[in-house]
């Protein structure tokens, strides 16, 4: 079975990989590129654990074929911190204890950053509405919402 050659950028780095047609972008990130920060939850678009950015758009990487990543700019949770310096969202997730088991966290961080890039000063209701596509079975969401609002405040310099 011939494999498909894909070149793309991931977190700014040029990457190339071979994939089968039946591999999703999530499979390629985790199994071909060894970027295991992005998680698989449901595999059907319900949980958001696999959230990544593709050409600036928040998507579920479990529902995108890896072959369709050709030429795309992909951003994953591994690109959020700059060296040792955490992204404000990562810092606030720790401060607010906005995670327990952590499997949903990479997806929440990516989705929350996508929100704050579009809407730097969201209301609580807007945060909840935007993050509806990301499920967390540990925290009850309150701490996540607080962390996102707090990170928004810090990023605005408020």
């Amino acid at each position, binding site marked *: 079975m011939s494999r498909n050659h894909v070149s793309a950028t991931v977190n700014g780095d040029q990457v190339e990989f071979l994939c089968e047609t039946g591999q999703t972008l999530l499979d390629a990130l985790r199994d071909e590129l060894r970027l295991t920060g992005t998680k698989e939850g449901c595999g059907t678009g319900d949980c958001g654990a696999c959230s990544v950015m593709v050409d600036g758009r928040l998507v579920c990487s479990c529902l995108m074929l890896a072959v369709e990543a050709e030429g795309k700019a992909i951003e994953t949770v591994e690109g959020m911190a700059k060296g040792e310096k955490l992204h404000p969202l990562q810092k606030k997730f720790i401060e607010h204890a906005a995670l327990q088991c952590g499997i949903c966290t990479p997806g929440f961080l990516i989705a929350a950053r996508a929100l704050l890039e579009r809407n730097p000063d969201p209301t609580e*209701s807007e945060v909840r509405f935007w993050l509806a*596509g990301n499920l967390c079975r540990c925290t009850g969401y309150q701490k996540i919402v607080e962390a996102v609002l707090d990170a928004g405040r810090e990023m605005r310099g408020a």
Partner: protein
Amino acid sequence: MMRLPWFQYQRPASVAEAARMLAAEGPRGMLIAGGTDLLPNMKRRQQTPATLISLSRVEGLKKITNGSGLTLGAGLTLTEVVGTGAVREKYRGLWQAAAQVASPHLRNMGTLGGNLCLDTRCNYYNQNEEWREAIGYCMKKEGKTCWVATASKRCLAVSSTDTAPALIALDAKVRLVSAAGERELALASLYNNDGINYITRKPDEILTEVVLPQLDGWSSTYWKLRRRGSFDFPLLGVAAAARMAPDGSVLEARVVLGAVSSQPLPLAKASEFLVGKKLNDEVIAEAGVLAASRAKPMDNTDLDVYWRKEVVPSFVGYALREIRGDDMRAMRMRISRQAL
């Protein structure tokens, strides 16, 4: 963990090339646009095409033509539809419907054409292979019985598209292109009340465009019932559009229900009933009763089926009150957690 089955992948650059590939593949081929409906279905082995023909690189499917009326390319993502000023200003019902589909992630991926062609849904069908095998499958895929109503001769899976009821209320047409030619048909005629053969699109046709007429003086709206304030598929959709005389009496009206049948359900009687009347509370209540008499929700989605039927008049009421000009924002916030 569910994995995709094996398939061949083709990536045409034009509609004509895609149509040729689709014709060559026959029923073994399927189109993939956003993939948000198809790929979960393939992972659950509900659909197992031998070849996927990707529309991701096809030229021209994201075109927006704003002249008399509005033409929307079927490849526009739902986010792009929501971000189109002309949709928000002139075709409010479509804007509200598109904004309420799924989550931000899925609206960024899923397309307008994909939402119109969305597979029908059912609690006995949208399950993984092992689950379906354990009940002996159902008639929609590999089985013989409809587990929703075992005496039913037809599949009762539910039409779960939000944008179709809104677009039917707005009198939209769709363009279908195949290697043999192309045709335009009223969106209402794209659907059958049959959970298996729910769509009249032929297997070799590509839905390329949605054509909206110019609607001067019309108001439109869409209301959606679901368990959570966001994300979920509709358990009831109410789309309404009306043109009113300066004195407030209705000149033309179209009310369409979603998710209470295997197709979007235009309500001819309730719509005709409104013509010539002013939308006062009594008229709205009576239209709600007429609408509810047509709604036949089945016990194959979420929430209690009797309650879902009972709330039809209320949701028709919200829609018609919004058309009348009432400030429905507080009710929107209660139901959808967003202003719309």
